[in-house]
C-alpha cells in the first residue's frame, strides 16, 4: 500500500510572469508567491467505474515514470470544481478524461480547449455557458472537465491558461469495480506517450489533428 502519487514538486516560489488578476488571486497570503508551473496534467474520472478511471490511472503511471519537476500531476478524480483551482498558475494544461460519444471503445479524441469554451467572459447576470459542441461529448460521470474549464475561466480571469488540450478516451465498460478494458488500456498508453512527448518537446499542442 502506498500513498497517492505526490502532486509533482511543491508549488514554485518564483515570480509568475504576470501579476495574478483573477478572483483566485484572493487566495494568496501576503508574502507568499502564487503557484507557478510549466504544465499541469489533470486526470479526471471515477476509479470505481471501470474505464471511467482512465484519467486517474494515467496520472499514476505518469507519477511512476516521472515527469519534469516543473510539471504538476493532478488526480482530479470526480472533483470538477477543484480541477479548476488546479489549473491555477499553469502555463499549459493537459486534461485526460473518459468519454462516451458512441465511437469505438479506446478511440482517442484530442480537443483544443479554445474550441470548447466560449470566448466571452460572463457579463452581469449571465452565467457563463459552454459552447453547443459540448453537447456532443457527454461524460460518463457527473462532473465534467468542460464545466471545470468554464468555471476556471471565470475564476482565474486573465490567469486562465491559454494553452489547454483535452484528451478524451472512449470508454467501453463502466461497471463498478471493473479494471480498464484492454482497448482503453492501450489507448491510455498511447496518450501517455503523447503527453510525455508534449512535455519534453514543448510543441504547439493546438496544431494539427491527432484524433485516432
Amino acid at each position: 500500500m502506498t500513498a497517492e502519487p505526490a502532486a509533482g514538486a511543491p508549488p514554485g516560489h518564483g515570480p509568475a510572469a504576470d501579476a495574478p488578476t483573477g478572483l483566485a488571486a484572493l487566495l494568496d497570503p501576503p508574502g507568499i508567491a502564487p503557484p507557478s508551473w510549466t504544465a499541469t496534467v489533470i486526470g479526471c474520472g471515477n476509479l470505481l467505474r471501470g474505464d471511467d478511471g482512465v484519467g486517474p490511472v494515467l496520472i499514476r503511471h505518469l507519477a511512476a515514470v516521472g515527469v519534469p519537476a516543473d510539471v504538476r500531476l493532478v488526480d482530479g478524480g470526480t472533483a470538477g470544481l477543484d480541477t479548476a483551482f488546479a489549473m491555477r498558475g499553469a502555463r499549459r494544461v493537459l486534461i485526460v478524461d473518459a468519454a462516451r460519444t458512441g465511437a469505438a471503445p479506446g478511440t482517442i479524441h484530442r480537443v483544443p480547449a479554445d474550441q470548447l469554451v466560449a470566448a466571452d467572459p460572463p457579463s452581469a447576470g449571465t452565467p457563463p455557458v459552454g459552447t453547443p459542441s459540448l453537447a456532443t461529448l457527454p461524460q460518463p460521470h457527473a462532473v465534467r472537465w468542460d464545466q471545470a474549464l468554464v468555471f476556471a475561466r471565470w475564476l482565474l480571469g486573465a490567469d486562465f491558461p491559454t494553452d489547454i488540450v483535452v484528451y478524451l478516451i472512449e470508454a467501453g465498460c463502466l461497471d463498478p469495480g471493473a479494471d480498464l478494458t484492454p482497448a482503453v488500456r492501450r489507448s491510455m498508453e498511447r496518450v501517455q506517450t503523447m503527453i510525455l512527448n508534449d512535455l519534453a518537446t514543448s510543441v504547439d499542442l493546438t496544431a494539427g489533428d491527432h484524433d485516432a
Partner: protein
Amino acid sequence: MTTVDLNVSPMGRVEGDLDVRVTIDDGVVSKAWTSAAMFRGFEIILRGKDPQAGLIVTPRICGICGGSHLFKAAYALDVAWQTELPRNATLIRNIAQACETLQSIPRCFYALFAIDLTNKRYAGSPLYAEAVRRFTPFTGTSYGPGVALSAGPIEVYALFGGQWPHSSFMVPGGVICAPTLADVTRATAILEHWKSQWLEQRWLGCSVNRWLANRSWADILAWLDESASHRDSDCGFFLRYCLDIGLDRYGAGPGNYLATGTYFDPDLYRQPTVDGRNDALIGRGGIYAGGAHFPFDQARVREDVTHSYYQGTSAYHPFDGETVPVDPERAQADGKYSWAKSPRYDVPGLGPIPLEAGPLARRVAAAAPGAAPHQDDDPLFADILATIGSSVMVRLLARMHEAARYYRWVRGWLDQIDLHEPFHLAPTERADGRGFGATEAARGSLADWIVLERGRIANYQVITPTAWNIGPRDGDGTPGPIESALVGTPVTDPSDPVELGHVARSFDSCLVCTVHAYNGRTGRELSSFVLNETV
C-alpha cells in the same frame, strides 16, 4: 382542497441523483419521498479485497468528502489492527478533516444555498435587491470572493495530504507525510489569510472571538444590533433576510439528531478502540431524541432496507449488513423506491428511529452536559432550538457557526505539531478483526464498519450522512429526515418551488449540484419539474 403531485429532479447529487417527490395540499407540502437514483456498488467492490483497499476505494465514493472518507476508513483499520497512533498523526488527521469542512462551508453557502435567495419569489422583500447584488452566481459581490476563497483550506490539506480530495495519505498507524517547518508556516499563513479575508472580513464582520461570545439567540440578536459591520456582513444580512422572508419558519426536520463526533485529543486516542472513542473526541458525538441526550453507541445503528432496492425487509447492524441489489422496476411493486438504505438508531426507550445528521446535530451534541475539558462545549444551539426551533435558517446558521470554531481548533493543532516526532508507527497487520471508524464530514456523520477474515475484507459497510438524511421510509413507514423536513413547507408557486430547494439544500447533500449551479443550470432544473396528474 387541491392536491398536486410534483416531481422535482434533480435536486442534489451524492452517489447519483436525488429525486424528490412531494404532494402539495392547499399550497403546503403534505407528503414527501426522497429517492436515490443510483446504486452504490462499493461495498461489493471491497468484499474479498486487501484490508487497506478501503483507503483507496472509499475516498472515491464522493468528489467532495474524500478526506472524510479517508479519515474514518483509516480509523476503522486502526481499530481492527489495534495500532498505535503518534500525536502528530492525530493532529494532522484532525487538521485535514477540519480543512475539508472549512472549504465546504463557504462553498455550500454561496455556490449552493444562497443562489436560491435571489429567486424572484422574494422580489417583494425590501432586502431583495441587496440579496441579488450579493448572491447572484458569478457576478454577486459576495459570491465570487466566497467561492474563490473556499479553496484556501484545501491548500492547507494538500500541504499535508499531497492533493485533495482523493488522497490516501492517512494509513493505519498514522499519516504518510513529512512536513517541514516551511510547510507548517505556509499552512498557518494560508489559514490566517482565509480567516481574515473571508471569515472575519466578509462573513462575520467581526473577530472570531467576538462571534464565539454569542451563547444564545438573544446574544445573536444583540450582536446584529451592535454595529453596522455586523448587520451588513454576509452573516448579518443572511439572518435579517431569513427573518424577513420566513426561512425561520419551516424545514424543521425530525427534531432528533445523531452525531458520531470527530477530531481526537492526540494523547487520548493513541490506541484507537471503539470503547475509548467517545471520551477521546474533541468534537463530541451524541444522540438527541425525545428531548434527551444519549451517548453515541455504534452497536445501536441499523440499516433498514424495507423501501430500498435491496433484497428483503431486514434491518441489520452494519457488521452483519448485506448489500444485495434487486431489480428496481420489480422491487417497486413491493413498495421499494430508493437505492439508499434507511439508517436507523435504536434509541433507548424509543426504538429504531430516523435521526438528522449534519452541523445542527453536531451543535446539539456540543450543548450536551458533561463535556470534558478537551471537548467542545457550546450552548448556543440548544438555546436557539429552545427559543425559535429548527428551520432552514437555523440549519444553515449551525453550518456557518462551525467555521469560527473549527478555524480556532485547526490553528491550535498546527501549533502543536512537533516536527522532531514521528508521524507514523508501523502497524502489525492482523488477518482477522473488526473495526469501526467514524467522523463528521461537512454534511454529517460518516462511518465505516469493516470485518477482516483471513487477511481479506469479509464485509465492509459505509453509512454516509446523505444516507442518514435522504434515506427512505423504514419498515414502520416512518419517513426519513429530509422527507419529514419537507412536510409543512409552503410552496407559493408550484411552477417554481424554490422553498423545496431551500429545505433540501439546507442539508447540503451535494456539491455536483453546485457545479450545475455554476453553469446556470440549477435554477432551470428546479423549474423544469414534471407536474404529475392531479389526484
